[in-house]
């Protein structure tokens, strides 16, 4: 694992400590439904960790535990040594979460969506805010959308605006929930490049939840496979190109059989 001790601010080159994430025996129940089962995991500072798993396996719920949106039924989540369930942690560690559907504020323009964090935390003057916002929009090829309402954008564009909004927060820890879903292959590649650049250039720790096998295997330092609420394995991408475990192999390299008896039943 590459050692890195500082994250560099993408907008000002200021430095702050890189942060790691630790989950210790985390379980989560919703009523009688056990969504996460005894998850223990450490994400190193400056690492890109990709969590993969089938739909409904608990990936997004786990992500919400890291930012403190969900509290574990048992176990503990820490970010840079601070308890993630404590709201004060969000004041100590700059975290940004890119939601799957964007979660943009529909009552604000794209520009104001990006400027909200900077204004509320009084991080820069209006001129400084404008510079940061326009630069983030430029990185995501969104300069022409600044005055538009999020409701006027396509799903893919909204996702890019959500990533731009996360970028202006100059995070030490970036969390992505399906960052490449709804995106075309070119934009997916751009997002992958952005995640990799944030790590290589700015030492930002990234925790990515994704179904995108190519993204996971191309940019991740380590990949975790979550199935049925259990973390089956954590391994470098190279080890997952040809996994030995048949369950993981079936998930990562699904075999499509058009002669499957189920299709025959449908035809009849």
């Amino acid at each position: 694992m590459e050692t890195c001790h500082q994250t560099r601010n993408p907008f000002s080159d200021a430095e702050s400590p890189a942060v790691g994430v630790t989950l210790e025996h985390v379980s989560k129940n919703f009523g009688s439904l056990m969504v996460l089962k005894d998850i223990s995991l450490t994400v190193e500072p400056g690492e890109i960790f990709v969590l993969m798993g089938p739909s409904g396996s608990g990936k997004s719920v786990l992500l919400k535990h890291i930012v403190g949106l969900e509290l574990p039924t048992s176990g503990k989540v820490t970010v840079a040594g601070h308890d993630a369930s404590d709201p004060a942690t969000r004041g100590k560690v700059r975290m940004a979460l890119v939601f799957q559907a964007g979660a943009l504020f529909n009552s604000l323009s794209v520009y104001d969506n990006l400027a909200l964090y900077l204004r509320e935390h009084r991080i820069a003057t209006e001129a400084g805010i404008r510079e940061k916002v326009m630069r983030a929009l430029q990185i995501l090829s969104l300069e022409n959308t600044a005055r538009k309402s999020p409701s006027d954008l396509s799903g893919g564009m909204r996702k890019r605006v959500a990533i731009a909004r996360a970028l202006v927060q100059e995070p030490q820890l970036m969390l992505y929930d399906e960052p490449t879903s709804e995106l075309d292959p070119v934009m997916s590649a751009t997002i992958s490049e952005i995640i990799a650049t944030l790590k290589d250039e700015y030492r930002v720790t990234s925790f990515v939840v994704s179904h995108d096998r190519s993204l996971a295997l191309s940019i991740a330092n380590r990949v975790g496979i979550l199935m049925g609420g259990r973390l089956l394995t954590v391994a470098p991408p190279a080890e997952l190109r040809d996994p030995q475990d048949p369950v993981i192999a079936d998930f990562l390299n699904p075999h499509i059989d058009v002669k499957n008896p189920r299709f025959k039943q449908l035809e009849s």
Partner: protein
Amino acid sequence: MKQLIAILEGIGGTLRLLVRAVAFAPTLPRQLPRFMEQCYQIGYTTLPIVSILSFFIGGVLALQAGYSMESFGAKEFIGSLVGLSMARELGPMMVAILLAGRVGSAIAAELASMKVYQEVDALVTMNIPPERILVLPRLAAVIVMMPVLTIIANLVGWFGGAIVAHSVDFIALEPEKYFETLRRFTKFEDVANGLIKAEVFGFVVVLICCSIGLNTRGGPREIGAAVTKAVVVSLILILVLDYFLTQSLL
């Protein structure tokens, strides 16, 4: 038992929301644009319907009072009846009911939608407390706008009563006489009591609607359910609080 627990949880959650919102009160000067926008929504956009309804409530009161009092020669007291009824009861009550139906439902719908579509979660992850920017400006705005709306409702209701009392043939009461008895029997304390009621009603309606909106879980169907719940709970609370406030202010 489950329903009782849900009610107690709702009360606890609402009080917690209130404490959190009030804790951010020092940030209010920084939120002047949001406060002004809420004043516009709560005050200006509600004003036409408040005026129309108050006018006709005043008119109906005068009509009913004229019909009853005319038979035993006490029609000059219509002014006092309309004045006291509007100031002590109907003015604040009508404004609060309109606030619940018009503004409260909109608040619940907006916040429930923000919650369901994860905008509230996005605020939390950005370390921007939703209570600070979504609840506090609304509470501050309703505190400022409720007395204004209630005074306007009282005035319009009084004038509505005067016009009806003068123009209806079987009453035909001179406006001078109407306003003379209105002035004689409607004291400043009566208007002040009404304003206290209006403040309490408005504050509770906005707080309840914010709380229900921010605690919505699920999908689009739950947004509609949250709006219905917010309006129903607000109306019930207005009537219940009205009884206790009236009793304590008598």
